[in-house]
């Protein structure tokens, strides 16, 4: 089959916060850019972010980037790379002001400055007291940010390929990335998009779990494509369970609720976080709160008929705070939990939320992978930003509000790096003759394979295995079994069949292609989790309850081929300041 080809300077895959921040800078620089998105840009999952974007503006109380950096390093359980963390925290005020200048409708203080609220793990004076660092637009910060970036891209005439799905990366013999093969969903047309720079901003993969705050589109497409092209995935064992997903529905309730003064109670009405984090209490970082909740439930202090959740109480905040600062939460609680939080508490449970791991990059957004010279070697032509990337600024556990920040800081920085790299590299390399072979084979299988299990069935099996075997607490026997079971599911995924063979907006085909990506991510997560014999951040082992810096202060690298694991050192040296030394993590 002959495949049409188009040529660009840059192909950006994904139009969430990171992809659109990068696209904006690239378009404004006059480059020929194609931005591919499975959905219309404002439908990207950034839209669901609620609580805020972290920046040490100091609008409410004294703050500075050093404190923000310390909190982020501590929050990461010391697995974050301190050069990247310094870079992000220093850039934070500037990128937030930039968003404001773009028109983002932040809430305001009486003096007209941007409103900031407290958030988990964000403290003053190197961990002493909670600080108001989360810049917020009510509880719709992601929506406000994403729409603002889209609007700005409209102004910049950015070239969006809406409802196009990237299928696979194109790499040549030298390992350089030369673009992607993609499919227009409306017509099923397959096309080669050749580019001198390919930037992935494809988001997370929360859909590997049965109970997830994530949208249906969060299927780890970028990770799947990278893994199939031989690029390792970093720190995949670290998955964040958000403390407050609505019980049953999984829909997110922002940590901003606790930032505004809400708190968690068990069946005895006890504010139990005081026992686990005497200083920060409900504003301890997410891994700590989720483990506390899971422990309360495990020890019989959960709420409800089955004792399988806890309650988030906020009625004491009063009508005014709830309707002004948390209107979206009230809407969600009414719709999905059938309670009005101004009167009754919301039933909540830890819910899979955020992937700390991803495609390994440096803090310029360049993808790095061991090839000839070592693990920090740049993969030419390939960049990744946002949740699909592992810079790593979040290490073993991300702080709330650092994700929106990550998107805009590294979206902007990757664009700057691309512009610089393209000046040195003005010509397209020739494409390998088999550039489209892998994706065409994947599509052909779906076309010819008429008998087999449904995609929905195999997908459900995968989500169930991940949920049972790789949750908040991880047990050695369950992990060992999980590795086996996820391999079996992966085998089953090779034999799925779809009935719909139409060329017109074939969503069954899209879901089958997404399953390939989910399976890559699920396997990476399970293998890396089974191998890491310590507890750190979002990875809590029942058999190794302590952090083990002597043996495990290192990033994992998972290679899809042979499920091989390798490790690389954490970059403990910041750019200009002293390293934060390793300490026990207490909130």
């Amino acid at each position: 089959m002959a495949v049409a080809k188009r040529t660009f300077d840059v192909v950006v895959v994904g139009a969430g916060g990171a992809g659109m921040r990068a696209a904006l800078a690239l378009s404004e620089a006059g480059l020929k850019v194609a931005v591919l998105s499975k959905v219309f840009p404002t439908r990207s999952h950034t839209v669901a972010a609620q609580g805020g974007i972290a920046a040490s503006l100091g609008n409410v109380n004294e703050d500075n980037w050093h404190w923000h950096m310390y909190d982020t390093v501590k929050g990461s359980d010391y697995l974050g790379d301190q050069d990247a963390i310094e870079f992000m925290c220093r850039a934070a005020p500037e990128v937030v002001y930039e968003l404001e200048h773009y028109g983002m409708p932040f809430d305001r203080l009486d003096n007209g400055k941007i409103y900031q609220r407290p958030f988990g793990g964000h403290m003053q004076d190197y961990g002493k007291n909670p600080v108001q660092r989360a810049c917020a637009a009510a509880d719709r910060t992601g929506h406000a940010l994403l729409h603002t970036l889209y609007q700005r891209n409209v102004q910049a005439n950015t070239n969006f390929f809406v409802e196009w799905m990237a299928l696979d990366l194109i790499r040549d013999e030298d390992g350089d990335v030369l673009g992607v093969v993609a499919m227009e969903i409306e017509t099923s047309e397959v096309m080669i998009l050749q580019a001198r720079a390919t930037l992935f901003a494809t988001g997370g993969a929360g859909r590997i779990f049965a109970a997830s705050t994530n949208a249906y589109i969060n299927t780890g497409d970028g990770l799947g494509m990278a893994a199939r092209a031989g690029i390792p995935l970093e720190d995949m064992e670290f998955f964040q369970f958000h403390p407050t997903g609505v019980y049953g529905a999984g829909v997110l309730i922002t940590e901003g609720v606790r930032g505004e003064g809400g708190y968690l109670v068990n069946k005895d009405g006890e504010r139990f976080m005081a026992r686990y984090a005497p200083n920060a209490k409900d504003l301890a970082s997410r891994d700590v709160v989720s483990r506390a909740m899971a422990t309360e439930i495990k020890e019989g202090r959960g709420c409800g008929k089955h004792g399988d959740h806890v309650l988030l109480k906020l009625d004491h905040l009063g009508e005014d705070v709830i309707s002004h600062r948390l209107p979206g939460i009230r809407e969600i609680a009414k719709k999905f939990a059938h309670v009005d939080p101004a009167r009754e508490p919301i039933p909540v449970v830890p819910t899979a939320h955020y992937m700390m791991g991803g495609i390994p990059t440096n803090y310029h957004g360049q993808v790095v992978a061991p090839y000839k010279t070592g693990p920090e070697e740049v993969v030419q032509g390939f960049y990744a930003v946002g949740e699909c990337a592992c810079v790593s600024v979040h290490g073993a556990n991300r702080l709330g509000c650092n994700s929106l920040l990550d998107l805009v800081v590294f979206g902007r920085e990757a664009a700057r790096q691309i512009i610089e790299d393209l000046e040195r590299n003005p010509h397209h390399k020739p494409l390998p003759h088999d550039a489209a072979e892998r994706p065409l084979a994947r599509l052909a299988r779906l076309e010819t394979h008429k008998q087999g299990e449904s995609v929905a069935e195999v997908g459900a099996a995968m989500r169930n295995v991940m949920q049972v075997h790789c949750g908040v607490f991880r047990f050695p026997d369950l992990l060992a079994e999980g590795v086996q079971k996820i391999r079996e599911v992966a085998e089953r995924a090779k034999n799925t069949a779809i009935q719909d063979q139409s060329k017109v907006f074939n969503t069954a085909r899209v879901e089958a292609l997404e399953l390939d990506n989910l399976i890559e991510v699920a396997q990476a997560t399970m293998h890396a989790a089974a191998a890491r014999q310590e507890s750190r951040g979002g990875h809590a082992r029942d058999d190794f309850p302590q952090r083990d810096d002597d043996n495990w202060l290192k990033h994992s690298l998972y290679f899809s081929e042979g499920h091989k694991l390798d490790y690389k050192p954490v970059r403990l040296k910041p750019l200009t300041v002293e390293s934060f030394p390793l300490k026990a993590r207490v909130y």
Partner: protein
Amino acid sequence: MKFRIYRYNPETDAQPYMQDYELHIEAGDMMLLDAILMLKEQDDSLSLRKSCREGVCGSDAMNINGRNGLACITPLSSLKQPIELRPLPGLPVIRDLIVDMTQFFKQYHSIKPYLVNNDPPPETERLQSPEERKELDGLYECILCACCTTSCPSFWWNPDKFVGPAGLLQAYRFLADSRDQATAERLDNLEDPYRLFRCHTIMNCVDVCPKGLNPTEAIGKIKDMMVKRTV
């Protein structure tokens, strides 16, 4: 539980038709989207858009028992059976419940949906009082689902000329922003027999907006601004 769903695949169907489906479930706490996805497990050719499943992305707008809404936040128990699902009215159908939204976004883009401020940006944020910021409430929350615009008879008659409620709500979002400096240009852009003035305050848009926004009110305020500047 009985469903009647609009089906159309241009490759194979000469005409659209309604297909009956049945699910043996209790409505319980389920949302309509959950039920449609169960139907899709039986028949993977049933096509729709979906993403966030919590009413913030705007993907799964459709016509539900004659009324536009988002499937993911419509409780199944609130619906009379057979539950009749059709694509959003007034836009070309691509397939089943999926419509071509090109015209809708074209109108949105036509109002220049971005802040215009030609002053050099300050080193920190531009100041805006809480009262000024409050003017944007009820405007910026739009999720571009098109429930309102595709329920508007004026848009059905003149989709190429009338901006429609979603676009006009956003036009007012920027007119109302104390930081924006393009008021005159924005009003000029709407000064036309069709673009703004085809709104006849039918208020279908207000009735169906899944976010509880009020485009008619915003349109009224734009009309006021037009009147004031001619006086």
